[in-house]
């Protein structure tokens, strides 16, 4: 089983557009949307939901107002400022550490399992997709990412499919680390802006730390040719294959508005770029496979 994860240090570089285009190319695959914080892939995939599961993770403190004597010890001890003057627990701030539960002299605080959102298994025109939606402001997206990927793996095994295509999370924190580990190839989508180039370098440090082979796709490449060239030099320097340069085109937004992948919307134009990128990915995967079986 092989897993490709598409990531981008910075948001808005077109990661989901690239991923949905790749989904329509190559061999059958299972899709895993790990961009759970702001999952957009479903807007292109139009999933038909087959199964919905609650995502429960961690705990939350709950104060029983009848038992509470408002002594203030919990407020004093809580390091996350999660309890306000009226002894209400602010869910977004509560880390579920249970210190207040142990501190409370009147036993007024209980720890409850925390409901964080849902994950789904759906059918799409490109294959089965596992995706999730966190409740607004919910935490623990790292564990949800792991849940989505584990489920995708199980479905792939059941269906006898050898490839998983994962939409990774942005950033360098816990969700992206959770979406990267044990993948076979990371496709990093970058754009030629000063900010994105710096984020690209940070995310590349991360993939190299985890020992994950990676390749780079430059999106909106013609916005700034000299920065695109800098990305190319960086790729060369780090011995990363440059999988392709995609031009900045209105068609990418048009495809999104129509709910299509760019390969479907513009098969001969942008679609051609994506085909070449896919070939590069395939080559890289084959090389990895050879190296690991040799």
């Amino acid at each position, binding site marked *: 089983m092989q897993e490709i994860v598409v990531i981008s240090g910075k948001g808005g570089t077109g990661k989901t557009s690239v991923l949905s285009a790749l989904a329509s190319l190559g061999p059958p695959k299972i899709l895993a949307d790990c961009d759970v914080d702001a999952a957009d892939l479903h807007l292109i995939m139009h999933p038909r939901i087959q199964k919905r599961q609650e995502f429960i993770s961690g705990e939350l403190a709950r104060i029983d107002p009848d038992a509470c004597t408002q002594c203030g010890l919990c407020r004093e001890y809580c390091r996350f400022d999660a309890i306000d003057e009226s002894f209400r627990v602010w869910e977004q701030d509560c880390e579920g550490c249970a210190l207040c539960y142990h501190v409370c002299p009147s036993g007024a605080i209980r720890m409850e399992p925390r409901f964080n959102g849902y994950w789904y298994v759906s059918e799409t025109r490109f294959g089965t997709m596992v995706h999730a939606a966190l409740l607004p402001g919910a935490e623990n997206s790292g*564990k949800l*990412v*792991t849940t989505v990927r584990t489920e995708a793996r199980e479905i792939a095994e059941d269906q006898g499919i050898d490839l998983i295509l994962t939409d990774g999370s942005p950033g360098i924190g816990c969700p992206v680390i959770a979406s990267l*580990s044990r993948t076979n190839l990371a496709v990093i989508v970058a754009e030629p802006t000063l900010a994105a180039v710096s984020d690209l370098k940070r995310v590349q440090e991360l993939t190299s730390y985890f020992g994950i082979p990676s390749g780079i796709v430059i999106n909106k490449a013609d916005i700034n040719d000299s920065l695109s060239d800098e990305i190319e030099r960086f790729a060369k320097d780090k011995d990363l294959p440059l999988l392709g340069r995609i031009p900045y085109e209105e068609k990418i937004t048009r495809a999104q508005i129509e709910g299509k992948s760019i390969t479907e919307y513009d098969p001969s134009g942008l679609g051609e770029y994506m085909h070449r990128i896919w070939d590069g990915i395939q080559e890289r995967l084959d090389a990895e496979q050879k190296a690991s079986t040799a």
Partner: protein
Amino acid sequence: MKVGISSTGKTFQDQLDPRFGRAAGFIIFDLDSGQSEYLDNQGNQQASKGAGIHSAQNVVQAGANAVITGHIGPKAFAALDSGGVKVFQSEVKSVQEVIDDFRQGNLTQAHNPDKPGHWQG
């Protein structure tokens, strides 16, 4: 001497589970008496973090002086190392075959973790 083998099931015919922290369970096998017990690890399979080190803790508490697994992350490795527990690596095969390999000295001892850990630890 007892070895803990990460396993996909309870019997010697089950396969070695290549994951350490997220293994389905561990077979704790006493090389001297030939007796064995099964340690369920589902709690750690579900844990959001710290699965590797808690698996290490549980295997050692069950009396293992050595561990055989596929891949092990840095935190779990450090934990076992700190307890003086040796780590051996094996390919995926039946637990019986793994034990035979170990008895014949065919397994290599790991001196470093072989995969960077985080969530999959």
